[in-house]
Each structure stands twice: as structure tokens, then as C-alpha cells.
């Protein structure tokens, strides 16, 4: 009973966020990174000026938290092959050099901050492990390309 009014309150904000912001991003991994980067690491609150203007800061933050969790759940359950494709799409969308990107993400563990606050411990472990694997596999795919590029 207690959850029902809160869900009704944030539903328009969730729809707005999906339609106006998240749908424009290429793939779930990009959406995950976007939502994680909109979160204040000190407080765990999410910030989105447009959404807060139309609704309220509190509703906007809750809507973003909900979308973050849903996208995370989807990514936890995709196969490793699909996750690699998601990650590849995200890398291309950043316009960074893939080799540099992969090296940086592997060393800094940047993907660790993409986990939602309200998250099951084991789900988080599964996700981190899969991203770690995906990065390693993408790096092995990169090696022959860079070698060819060098020889060309």
C-alpha cells in the first residue's frame, strides 16, 4: 500500500525521462553511464534540471533512480555476447580511441560507478565480472586491428 502512491507520482517523470532523454542515447550501456554520471556520489541523489523543472527535484531523482535500476537489471541478464555489443556501441558513441578507452576503463575500473545504489550485492558482482570479461574480450579483438593498422 505504501509504495503505490509513490509509483503513481513518479510515473509521468519516468515516462518523460525515457521519451525525451534516454531514448536518444545509443543502447542500454550508454543509458546506464548517463544515469550514473547524473548521480551525486556523496548523497546518491540524481540531478536533471529539465525533469526537476517539470516535476520536482525529489520526483526527478526517484524517477532516475528507478530507470537506473531497471536498465541495470536488464544488463545483468543479457548474455556476455550482447553485453560486448552494448559496450562496443557505447565506446563508439564516445568518439574516444577504443584502445585508449579500454585501457583506461580496465585500469581505472570506471565501470564500477555505474552500479545503482539500491542494488543486490550478487547482481552487482555478476555485472562487474561480466563487464570485466567484456573489456578483456574487446581488448583481444583490438590487438589484431592495431597490429594491422601499424603494418599498413
Amino acid at each position, binding site marked *: 500500500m505504501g509504495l503505490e502512491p509513490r509509483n503513481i507520482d513518479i510515473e509521468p517523470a519516468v515516462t518523460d525521462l525515457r521519451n525525451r532523454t534516454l531514448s536518444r542515447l545509443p543502447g542500454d550501456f550508454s543509458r546506464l553511464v548517463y544515469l550514473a554520471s547524473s548521480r551525486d556520489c556523496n548523497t546518491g541523489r540524481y540531478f536533471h534540471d529539465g525533469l526537476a523543472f517539470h516535476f520536482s527535484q525529489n520526483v526527478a531523482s526517484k524517477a532516475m533512480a528507478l530507470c537506473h*535500476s531497471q536498465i541495470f*537489471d536488464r544488463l*545483468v*541478464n543479457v*548474455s*556476455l*555476447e550482447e553485453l560486448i555489443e552494448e559496450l562496443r556501441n557505447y565506446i563508439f558513441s564516445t568518439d574516444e580511441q577504443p584502445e585508449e578507452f579500454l585501457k583506461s576503463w580496465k585500469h581505472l575500473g570506471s565501470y564500477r560507478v555505474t552500479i545503482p545504489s*539500491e*542494488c*543486490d*550485492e*550478487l*547482481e552487482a*558482482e*555478476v555485472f562487474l*565480472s*561480466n563487464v*570485466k*570479461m567484456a573489456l*578483456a*574480450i574487446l581488448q*583481444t579483438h583490438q590487438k589484431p586491428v592495431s597490429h594491422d593498422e601499424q603494418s599498413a
Partner: protein
Amino acid sequence: MSQLLPYLFLGLLLSAVLAWWVWDAIVHRSTAEVLTPRQHRSTARSVGSQRDLGERIFGTEDWDFVLHETPSEIQRMFQRERTVLALAWLRRTRRQTSQVMRAHVAVARQSEDLQIVVEIKLALNYLLFLGLCNSLIGWVWLLGPVRTRKIVGHTLQWAARQRAAFAQLMARVDPASCRVVGTNFNHGTVRN
């Protein structure tokens, strides 16, 4: 003297399992205490998404992909990663079962309609489950989740049957605090 050897071996095996259990409980006690509130929150949030986590960890889809598409170095890395996850999942399953068992014991102590035979049967099944769970942890640790998925699947099918009986018993003893022990393993769709 040779007649005593099987008993000696069985005793040693039981001692080893018990020692492993105690050691594991001590090592992971602090983790369990820290994780409990988060798990409780997440259970309310997304029970559905957790249901297939065991299947996700023990499933062969990712392994098939890794086996055919990646070099041996990556395959070894995958085995290591999945072993860690499988062990964490088995420990959590054991911990959840223990939590429900403790809750049941607390309620049963105050119950006036206590059936001793059923309680003893339940306690024996619980001990058997713990023993099997610890054995599985050992097997997964030694062989990895890919090679042990059949035995894990069969054991947890048995555990699921016990769980159903346990839930009925809990409902009879204390309907208010009746909770389902989740093994998070979808047995119906697991490919052996």
C-alpha cells in the same frame, strides 16, 4: 583393523566438511552482516530479476560463446570469474536457508502445536542440505561452475522439494512470519 577403515574415512570426511563449514562461516560472517540490509531492500525491489541469477551464473550460453570466440587466456579468466560468482551464490543460498531456519526455530520454540517428528525430520533435512551445500562449494571450487552445473542442478532440485515442504511447515507453525527460501535457480529451464 581394515574393517574400521570405511568408518574412519567417513569420520574424516564429515570432520572435513564440518571444519570447512565452520571456517567458511567465520570468514564470511562479517560480509553476511554487512550485506543483509542491502539484500533485504533489493528483495523487495526486484525479486523477479534475482530469480534467474543462479541460472545466469551456471548457464552455458556465455561459456559456449567464450569457448568458440576467445583465446585460452580469456577462457581461463572466465572460469576464474564464474567460479567466484558461483561460490558467492552458493554461500548466499546457504545463508538464506540458515536465516529462515533460525526464524523457524525461534517461532517453533513458542509454538504450542509442535510436532516433534516433523521437526526432527526438518532438522535432519536442514543438516543434509548444509552438508550438500558445503560439498557443492568444494566441487565448484575444485572444478568450476561449468563442469559442476549438473550436480548443482540436481542438488538444488532436491533442495527445492525440501523448500516446498518447509514452506508448508512454516505456514502451519507460524503463518504470519512464513517466508519462502529462495534458491534463485530456475530448474525448469536449465539445460543439462
